[in-house]
């Protein structure tokens, strides 16, 4: 594994951890970013959903940071970011989320177990 993957992994891990903490701090405010159609799909109340999102973000961030199952957690990060882009819609920060999603996808590919030939 080269330095580049490790630097990106740690950076993405820190981002997920910090965002998770910020969501915990103001779950309702973060929930306001959701599109009305996405709010209608939630099977639980918005605050609980955002708290679960915070726990998910912190879990993904921590496992990326300590490099345990990095391929799996990079993939989860990618799926999560695509979901965020979908349910939040195009806003001023969509470009950032697209960049993060691309990073998560690149990490997934880099860490994916190679088939022995």
């Amino acid at each position, binding site marked *: 594994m080269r*330095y580049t993957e490790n630097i990106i992994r*740690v950076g993405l*891990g*820190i981002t997920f*951890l*910090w965002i998770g*903490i*910020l969501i*915990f*701090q103001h779950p309702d405010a973060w929930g306001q970013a959701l599109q009305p159609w996405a709010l209608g799909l939630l099977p639980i109340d918005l605050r609980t959903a955002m708290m679960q999102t915070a726990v998910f973000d912190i879990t993904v961030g921590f496992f990326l*940071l*300590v*490099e345990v199952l990095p391929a799996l957690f990079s993939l989860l990060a990618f799926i999560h970011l695509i979901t965020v882009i979908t349910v939040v819609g195009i806003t001023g920060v969509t470009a950032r989320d697209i960049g993060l999603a691309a990073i998560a996808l690149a990490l997934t590919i880099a860490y994916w177990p190679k088939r022995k030939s």
Partner: protein
Amino acid sequence: MVNLTPHALLFTIAAIGIAEAAYLVKTRRSEIAPVCPIGQDCSTVLSSRYNHLFGVHNDILGFLFYIAFAGATALLVLEAVEVSSLLSAMKVMLAGATIMSLFLVYLQAKVIRAWCFWCVMSAATICLMDIIILTTTLS
């Protein structure tokens, strides 16, 4: 509104420390020589008789410290506990880590006479945390 810049910086530095310590624990447990980005003496230092304190490996002590510090910073952001007590606890933790870092730097310079990139990086992160704690207002 509380300025979160020092909190974010402290948390980021602690998270880098977690990643670094986790890497050192993993390489030690797998009996793999850690990558030494600068110099070639990492293994000399990490396998020396000073690689543990009170029967616990330094990498584990570092990992626990960084986890505790990152957790405390998160609690500070969330205002989940009384801020002044938490800040005092963080300062005590950091003072302990600073003393240990200085001791490890002394060991590398004067006793082992070899430098380990990861140990120096850890000392630098502790130093940065000291600067942030001493120069900013965390509340």
